[in-house]
């Protein structure tokens, strides 16, 4: 276990380095500069002074080096647009994105597995076709369009749900305001889980040990929900690890459409304002979140499949 953690930690460091290098250099290829330099009334001298002050006149490699040294000491610098510490700006946004992400994962996993089993049990019957059709629609319709249609229908026409914002303090308001974002985010993850559960279930039920469990006289319910499902979930768990990054990139669009003050929207704001420090900060934090969640997925995987060794 310890060996696994150490190995994983080493790999993660390399991964974070690569991600930050790519982000830093790509970001600097984009034209323009921090919004504080973009003020219309700023004179050329003022701009030069700000650039000098922020160290923007140094070569890119030197700036990346400086950033890296500070980041390793836990200092992600100050936001170029607001002057607050980057860490503070990120942390005030994190809970909102977590709220969406956790609900989306929970709903996708629970509903996805249930629909997947149903689809496998009713293979080639109408239930299976309906679920399959729904999955294809969910996966292929762009989420920004779907989000706008939802707002038009449920907020503008019917007036049932708020079109944007996070709602007030009451639980009911929080529920109604997060409902649409969570559903839209789920359209990218839920169908994948349904399809994986279905195909994995169909593969497992044709295996010999299922015949053995029936030969023991076990009821069909036990055969399917204990023997088959436990095996069918193994590939489903690994796909959850893949879905987490997809989900986080989905928040960029969904949070922008619904005016949701989370990490996804923060990175859009940061990129638009050329707030280099903030972009880098969000990138690092998101990368760490993905790494940790994948680590958790791997631990669960090894607990479910006894054939996987050296983990957990």
């Amino acid at each position, binding site marked *: 276990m310890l060996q696994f953690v150490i190995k994983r930690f080493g790999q993660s460091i390399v991964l974070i380095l690569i991600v930050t290098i790519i982000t830093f250099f790509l970001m600097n290829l984009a034209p323009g500069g921090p919004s504080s330099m973009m003020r219309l009334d700023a004179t050329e001298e003022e701009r030069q002074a700000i650039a000098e002050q922020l160290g923007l006149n140094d070569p890119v490699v030197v700036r990346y080096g400086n950033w890296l040294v500070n980041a390793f000491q836990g200092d992600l610098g100050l936001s170029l647009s607001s002057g607050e510490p980057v860490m503070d700006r990120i942390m005030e946004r994190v809970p909102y994105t977590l709220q969406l992400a956790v609900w989306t994962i929970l709903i996708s996993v629970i509903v996805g597995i249930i629909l997947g089993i149903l689809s496998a049990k009713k293979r080639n019957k109408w239930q299976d076709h309906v679920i399959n059709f729904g999955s294809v629609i969910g996966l292929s319709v762009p989420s920004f369009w779907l989000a706008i249609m939802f707002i038009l229908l449920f907020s503008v026409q019917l007036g049932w749900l708020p079109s944007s914002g996070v709602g007030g303090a009451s639980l009911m308001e929080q529920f109604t305001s997060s409902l649409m974002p969570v559903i839209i985010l789920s359209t990218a993850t839920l169908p994948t889980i349904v399809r994986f559960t279905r195909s994995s279930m169909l593969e497992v039920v044709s295996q010999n*040990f299922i015949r053995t469990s029936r*030969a023991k006289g076990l009821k069909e319910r036990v055969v399917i929900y204990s*023997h088959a499902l436990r095996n069918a979930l193994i590939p489903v768990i690994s796909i959850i690890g893949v879905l987490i990054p997809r989900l986080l990139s989905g928040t960029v669009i969904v949070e922008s459409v619904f005016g949701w003050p989370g990490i996804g929207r923060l990175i859009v704001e940061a990129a638009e304002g050329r707030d280099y420090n903030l972009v880098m900060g969000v990138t690092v934090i998101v990368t760490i979140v993905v790494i940790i969640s994948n680590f958790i997925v791997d631990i669960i995987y090894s607990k479910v*499949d006894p054939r996987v060794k050296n983990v957990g």
Partner: protein
Amino acid sequence: MTGLLNVNNLSVDFKTDSGKIKAIEDVSFQVKPGETVCIVGESGSGKSVTSLAIMRLLEFENGEISNGEILFKEEDLARKTQDEMSNIRGNDISIIFQEPMTALNPVFTIGRQLMEGIQHHQKVSKQDAEKKAKELLGLVGINDIEDRMYQYPHELSGGMRQRVMIAIALACDPKLLIADEPTTALDVTIESQILTLLNELKEKTNMSIILITHDMGVAAEIADKIVVMYAGKIVEQGSVYQLFDEPTHPYTKGLLKSIPQDKGPRLKRLYSIQGTIPSLTQLPKGCRFHPRCEFATEKCLQEEPPLLKANEREVACWNYEDVIKKEVKQT
């Protein structure tokens, strides 16, 4: 009608995309208490289908019993619901499959897979089920029982897994044990160990065994009675002595000749029956065996022979008298 199991005129169909295929037709045989019956035949002859039909596991694999009855203790298993069958399977009738490597669930421990059948059928406490499970592992010759109980299938060898399968099958003291090629996937030394084990267990418990095999040598070692199947039908059945001393069907005769002999110099090539078993969708007219039979006459090409009965043995061949007299040719 004194048998523990009486299979009468059993026929099984398989549903495929191109319609129904008759997998076995008109199969009848009897198993008496304490008797070992071997069903022998090549791959595709319908041996395993017969065993799955008795267990009523066919329905899960696109098969259905289209005709006949399976009387077990005077009750017709063919008419029972799956729910009723689940009280019989693993309890009165058990089965061992031929693939020990894949027949156990990879994510559950040996102990759990063993105890689950006991708890299902006998409604005993977990402690009692555990005690019984350990006894069973001892009975089938597994050592380090305390450790094995908590191990997973991938931690055991093929022979050990087959022993676990046997322990699972014996969990509720069945009256009838079906062993579907239990040693095919194992190497020869393990094979004889498993057969010896089955024989010992039979003596101890007085259960009946149906052993399915393609190996006449295995049948000779363990059987009281032999049923020979070919292309979905029984072609001959009789006691092991009758069949080995005086085979009356050319197919049986061929099978016996193809057992390697360990005596004498190996001067000759091992005998083999020419040709291959026909596909069930393209059965020949007349006797199903005639294209491979050296005794075949004009009649065999036209008419299917009935199962003739005499001296408690049965044979489906028009020319059985010739078969008894003549030696099959060496190819």
